[in-house]
Structures are given as C-alpha cells and as structure tokens.
C-alpha cells in the first residue's frame, strides 16, 4: 500500500521552479532514498510534505488522505516526523527534555508526564544517548545532536520518518553507527524517506531511490537500476562529451 503519494507536486520560488511536477510514492515499510545534486529540490520536497511550505499545484496524500493545506503540527500528529538538514534542537534544554517534548506534543493523543519520561529514557537508550541525558543539548557533538533529533522525531510516534542528511558531516565510525541506526528504526516498522549525499549509505540501506535534478524527477528505481541509469550518470558526472574535453 502507498503510505505516501505525491501527484504533480510543484513549488516555485519567484520564477524558479524548485520542485516541478513531481509525482512519487512511498510504500509502507520501505526505505526510500532521495538524492540529487545541490539545489535539486530535495529539501523543498521535504518541506512540502511536512507542510513547512505549501505546494502551488499538485496533491500530497498520506494513507490515502490529502494532507497539503494542513499545518506542520497537524502533519506531525498524523504520524509524519522529520529531522532538519541543519540540526534544530532545543539547545538550552537537557537532552532528555528534548525527547520528552516529542512524546508530550507529537502523538495524536499526547502522553502523560510519567509515560513521556519513561519513553524518553527508552528512546535515549535505543539511540545510545543515555550517558548524556541530562546535559544541555547544545553541548553535544554534531553526531549526537543529529541522533537527538531523530530521537525527538521518533518520540512523536511516526509511521513515516523523514531524515534530511542524517549522515552529512559525520566521520567513518559515526557513519557506520548512523547506518545501523537507520536499519534498526526500519526493523521497528517505521517507513523512512531519507535525503542523503553519502552514496555508500544510500546504496546500502535503501530499497528504492528517487533522483531529483533541477526540481524534476529523473529516475526512480532500485539502487542497482539508478546506479546504471544513463541520465543519472550524466547528471552526476557530466555528459560524455564534457568529460572528454
């Protein structure tokens, strides 16, 4: 079943089509990678799905129901959680409080304080952040802040999790940990859409990859298909004639 569908989604910034007539779907339980060169419209598409922006035309459906036109908090309560390309944590609050906030406000019916605390502890354990639970979130390393964002997103009990460049800026060890983490989240039954530039991670984790270029969808298929696609190679490596010169 398609848990998330987009039909002819279009968004302009001034005269520039940031996302142009993009149709896509995500099946339940899938891990879908969203890739493309800088400025391809990946984050814009995330913003459209999470209602940070509203599409000019087109329709986005979640579990069969139209969701464009809703507010970000409604999207979150429906069960779509996201992280941000540049981490947006509540820096002055302790790590555990960041996660508790997800449980308190995120689910359709917010949890009681005691349940939220218990759940936050479980999630921190799951994310390997238990040691720093009471430190102010701003004091964490970038890798830990990104994990914290994921923990907060998971606390809202999403059926669909959108990760915006989770792996960017991580070192080798952190990268492997992050990849394991995504696999673990998937095993819990959460559907994942991830924007990523780290090809190793994308090829390894994703069931399917969608490629955007200049706001248009240019490819959609398994990692193998996408890696062999002529258009994708041209976009990423330049045309053969260019390479020759």
């Amino acid at each position: 079943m398609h848990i998330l569908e987009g039909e002819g989604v279009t968004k302009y910034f001034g005269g520039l089509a940031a996302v142009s007539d993009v149709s896509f779907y995500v099946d339940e339980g899938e891990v879908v990678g969203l890739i493309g060169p800088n400025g391809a419209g990946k984050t814009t598409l995330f913003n459209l799905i999470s209602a940070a922006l509203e599409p000019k035309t087109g329709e986005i459906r979640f579990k069969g129901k139209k969701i464009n036109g809703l507010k970000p908090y409604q999207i979150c309560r429906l069960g779509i959680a996201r992280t941000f390309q540049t981490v947006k944590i509540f820096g002055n609050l302790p790590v555990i409080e960041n996660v508790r906030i997800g449980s308190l406000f995120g689910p359709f019916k917010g949890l009681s304080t005691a349940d939220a605390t218990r759940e936050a502890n479980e999630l921190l354990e799951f994310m390997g952040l238990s040691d720093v639970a009471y430190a102010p979130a701003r004091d964490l390393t970038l890798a830990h802040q990104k994990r914290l964002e994921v923990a907060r997103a998971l606390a809202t009990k999403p059926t669909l999790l959108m990760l915006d460049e989770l792996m960017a800026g991580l070192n080798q060890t952190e990268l492997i940990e992050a990849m394991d983490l995504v696999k673990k989240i998937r095993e819990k039954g959460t559907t994942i859409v991830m924007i990523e530039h780290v090809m190793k991670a994308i090829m390894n984790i994703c069931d399917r990859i969608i490629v955007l270029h200049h706001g248009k969808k240019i490819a959609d298929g398994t990692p193998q298909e996408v890696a062999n696609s002529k258009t994708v190679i041209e976009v990423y490596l330049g045309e053969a004639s260019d390479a020759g010169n």
Partner: protein
Amino acid sequence: MDFSKINWKKAAITAGIPLVILIFLGLWPTIGPQYWVTLFSYFLLYIIISVSWTIFSGATGYISLASAAFYGIGIYAAALFREQFAANLPLIVVVLIGGLASFVLAFIVGAITLRLKGIYFAMFTFGLVLLLKEVIYYWEIQFNDLRGRFVAPESNDTIYYYLLGIFVITMIVAYLIRRSKYGLALQIIGENEEAAAHTGINVTMVKVLTYAVSAIFIGAAGVIMATKLTYVDPGVAFSPMMSFSPVLMAIFGGMGSIYGPVIGAVIFTYIEEILKTGSMKNYYMLIFGVILIGVILYLPNGIVGSIQNLWKRISGARRAHTRG
C-alpha cells in the same frame, strides 16, 4: 516512602513564603504610612505589568512593545465607564471590561502580527501604541469636542487593594503557565519555533492565546490607575514609557525565573522614586540608562539570574542542569 524532610521543607518554602508576603501586603495599608502605601501601589502596578510582559515575551523572545496600548485601553475603559459626576458601572465590572478589551485587542494584534520576527514585531507593536493614541485624539476632538476626560477618583486604599488582587491573579497565572505543559510549549517556541511546529505544537494558537491572556492584567491595571490619575488624555494613557518600562525591568531583574521581573520592577520603581524626588530629578533617565547598560553588559541573566549562578557556583553546581 519519599516523604523526606527536604520535600516538606521545600513545600513549606514554596507555599509559605508567598503566603507570608501576601499577608504582609494585605495588612500594609493599616500599618504603613500613607506615602509608603502609595509607593507600594506603584510597586504592584509595575510588577503586574512586567510579569505580564514576561509571560509571553520572556518565554518566546518576541519583544512586545504594546504594553502601553493595553494599559491605555484599560485607562479609556475607566474614562468611559467611570466618568466623574456620572452614573457609573461598578469598579469591579469596569476592571473586567478593561481586561477583556485588552484581551481582544491583543488577540487581534497577535493573530495579525505574530508571524513577524524579531525587530519587526517590536516595531509593529510599538506602532500600535502610537496609532491608538492618534486615533483616540482625533476621535475625541472631532466627535466629542474633548481633549481628555475626568475619571471618578478612588481612595488610596481601594486602589491599593485592587492592584493587590490583580497582582495575586497575575502571579498565579504566570506561575501556572510556567509550570504547565503549555508553558513548556511556549519555552520551546522561544528555543526554535520551526522545530516546535514540526514536533506537534500548534505554534500560532499558543502564541496568540498567551499574548492575549498576558494583556488582560495590563488592561485591568490601567483601569485602576485611571482612578488615581483622575484626568486622562491619550498622551497620558498611551505614554510610551509604559511599553519600555516592563522590558527594562524584566531584563534588569532577569527573565529566567518568575521572581526576576518582580525584583526588577521593585528596584526600578524605587530608584525612579528616589531620583525623581531628589536633587537629581533632571538626570533620572540618564542614570536609568547607565544602570541598564551596566546590567546588560555585566549581568546578562539579570539580577536574579546572576544570584542564582553565584549560588550554583557556591553550592558546587550540583543541580546545574535542572530547569528553573
């Protein structure tokens, strides 16, 4: 099992100290000299306004300069419904009208402008003060042939007790908001509004409603102060000082705790009184400015915040990460 002595002691302190202070304030007009009763009225007034301001602006970081507009609306509620030598509504009803009118005004202004960020919100809210002043001037002169209005005076004690009542309600509301899930939502809107919205918080509703609620107390206080002024015109009612004072007092006292704006308001009001009545009366704004710059530079968390930091350092920073 955990009924240790510390819990009881803490409970006694959190409930006991405010109760003692309240009893003292309640008895004050019967024991204190007239001059000090009047001065205490001003303490209460500025505490109400700076605590109300902090409820919204302290938590979210949206600097509102509309306090004078809400205060002025309260004053004009009194001017309309508590006119001198006229059949009037009871004072308590007018206080409620003033509070409600401020609530409605703040709700509308909030709904329109709370998408503005930073300095733009501050500018718009200050513009509102000037706009209301000019509109009411024009209206009064054009249609009523009036510049100002006379308000039925009240005794010093009545003014004091009304302000005390508003003060108590303001403090309780501020305390409850701060302690609630709702207050947490406000605080994280201040931390990162975008992330708050994507974490399931109805950001617009929380902001607009809190802003409107915080305006109630300022409007109610305006009604009472009008009975002390007895003559009001738009220039008096919408004096810009009422917009800036709460900001200065809250920054001075510190916005990290509920006591910050209270202490800031008392100290500022007292300094103003000394400077205005002493030989320095021409320089009091200058001295104010110097003190404020000093506080911003050297005590960025305000007086209360700095004392708390000092205490943490002395007590070994063992509770450094708990939320205030």
